[in-house]
């Protein structure tokens, strides 16, 4: 991944993957266009703008306009990618997304950037803690949160092939330790399929996004306590891979879900909905409780709001007592 700076921070990891994959898609398919609403500097999409100026538009700070514009563009045979901050994308333009993209079955790809707490220095206004709850509840949408930049790149390419609306949420990219890859060698993202990253027999840890490496770290620590944990990367949140989850739960009998999102309506809720009548087992949810965030240093936020590997370990140990 290339090294560059944005507002004094390095552009790597997820953010680099977004910029570079959009470039690849732009070269491969002249129907790919990118619609911005003045967050392009932060989301790293200006290489696309500079290379394909005719296929790039910024609509000003106007998320609603961006979505309705994208609908019209998609109906003319184009594949609009709309990378905006997940908070304003899903909250400000909720009605447009629901009616025009979901109900309208539009071939539009939404990228929710800086999801969860990964807009740390901006506080509760910018932190996107309920975007999964919002978009997941909309029929017709495919909903994805990938664990690493490589998987993000694969998911973006897959999204371009899916006929219909797709929402991909992604963390800010320059978070240390999270620019590697966590999936197995040869892995290929597929909507509706969730990879088991580590096999275990006592408990299942189901995670998405930046909680995937934390779940892997927790599994390692749990082993030292004599607990064998299976880890599933639930990057495809909708459609959800019920078979993989139920198969694992039949083996382990209990689970911890972990997400960088409110525990209300997010990935953990999706898991509970999927298993409640097929394989009801005790589950603990690690995620943001029913409260707003604040502007602070990222690691301090993770600590205060219980999003560390230690929080997954504690939940797992409690369940295994």
């Amino acid at each position, binding site marked *: 991944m290339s090294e560059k700076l944005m507002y004094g921070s390095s552009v790597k990891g997820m953010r680099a993957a977004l910029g570079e994959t959009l470039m690849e898609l732009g070269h491969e398919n002249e129907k790919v*266009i990118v619609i911005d609403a003045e967050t392009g500097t932060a989301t790293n999409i200006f290489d696309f703008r500079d290379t394909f100026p*005719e*296929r790039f*538009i910024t*609509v*000003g700070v*106007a998320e*609603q*306009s961006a*979505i*309705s*514009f*994208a*609908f*019209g*563009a*998609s*109906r*003319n*045979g*184009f594949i609009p990618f709309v990378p905006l901050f997940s908070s304003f994308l899903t909250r400000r333009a909720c*009605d*447009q997304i629901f*009616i*025009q993209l979901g*109900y*309208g*079955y539009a071939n539009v790809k939404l990228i929710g950037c800086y999801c969860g707490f990964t807009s740390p220095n901006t506080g509760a206004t910018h932190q996107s803690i309920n975007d999964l709850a919002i978009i997941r509840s909309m029929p017709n949408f495919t909903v994805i949160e990938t664990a690493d930049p490589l998987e993000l790149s694969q998911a973006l390419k897959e999204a371009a092939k899916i006929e219909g609306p797709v929402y991909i949420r992604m963390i800010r990219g320059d978070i240390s330790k999270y620019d590697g890859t966590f999936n197995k060698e040869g892995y290929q993202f597929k909507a509706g399929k969730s990879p088991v990253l580590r096999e275990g027999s006592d408990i299942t840890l189901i995670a998405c996004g930046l909680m995937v490496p934390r779940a892997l770290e927790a599994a390692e620590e749990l082993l030292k306590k004599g607990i064998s944990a299976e880890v599933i990367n639930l990057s495809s949140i909708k459609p959800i891979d019920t078979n993989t989850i139920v198969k694992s739960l039949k083996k382990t009998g209990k689970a911890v879900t972990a997400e960088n999102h409110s525990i209300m309506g997010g990935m953990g809720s999706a898991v509970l909905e999927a298993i409640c009548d097929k394989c009801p087992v005790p589950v603990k949810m690690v995620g943001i409780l029913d409260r707003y965030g604040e502007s602070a240093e990222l690691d301090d936020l993770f600590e205060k709001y219980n999003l560390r590997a230690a929080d997954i370990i504690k939940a797992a140990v409690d369940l295994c007592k």
Partner: protein
Amino acid sequence: MEYKNKSNIQVISKYKKEMSLKDLKDLALQLRRDVIELTYYSGTKSSHVGGELSAADMMAVLYGSILNVDPENPQWEDRDIFINSKGHCSGLQYAAMAWRGYFERDVLFNEFNRIDGRLQEHANMELPGIEAPTGSLGMGLCNGCGYAWTGRLKNKHKIPPNFVYVMLGDGECTEGQTWEGVMLAAQQKLSNLIAIVDYNKYIISASTYNVMDLEPFEQKWESFGWHTQRADGNDIAAFKDALEKAKKYKTAPGRPRVIIADTIKGKPISFMMKDAINWHAGHLDEELYKKCMKELGL
């Protein structure tokens, strides 16, 4: 398909390539009768009848002689795009679409506001010929911008062969998103975009003047960079002239066009025009239905 409801209204207008003003007037009358009939036979016995009647003459001009579309091939690449942004007036659009041949006429009186019916109170993309799901107000103009901008892109920045028409309600001009679209269209120089505002002077609860005054309306659009015309939207000849002028590139190179069309809500039904606030939407029982049809010459 065998339908329960059979309309007894005589069809007085048929599509032909060259529609005279007299033909368009007949079509407008046909559409008004069909709207009343559709409302009466609606599964909910209702529609947004007031705004449908105000826009009937404009819909007749659009579907009768302006829109270059092919009902046999609704996705035809070079078709004109028509977005009914004031989406609650779908009944009127459905009547025009049936007349133009998108679906059978009987569908109007049997599938509106009914379970599994194709004609939803607010149109959806399941119905070929509908270009945007509208109804939540304020979205249509930005949809039009998306169509117009990519239309130009598709044609390698030559003047596209088609136009994008968006009909807005005056009430939805109080939506912030409408003005996002107004700015966007001017910034992008979308001369292939033509907006029409059905200015019947009533929002839902009262007059626009009392609720949220739109005036000076022309100056607002003009100052945002649009070529602006004001026309009588219930005068078929005047409205058609305004559209023909808007379609000429030379009229205003590089600028989007708007026609602010003065209309009367409920026209020509006397009890609706007198009490427009109560006829934004409405139920028609048998007595009211007969009253309406009498005023429409039946």
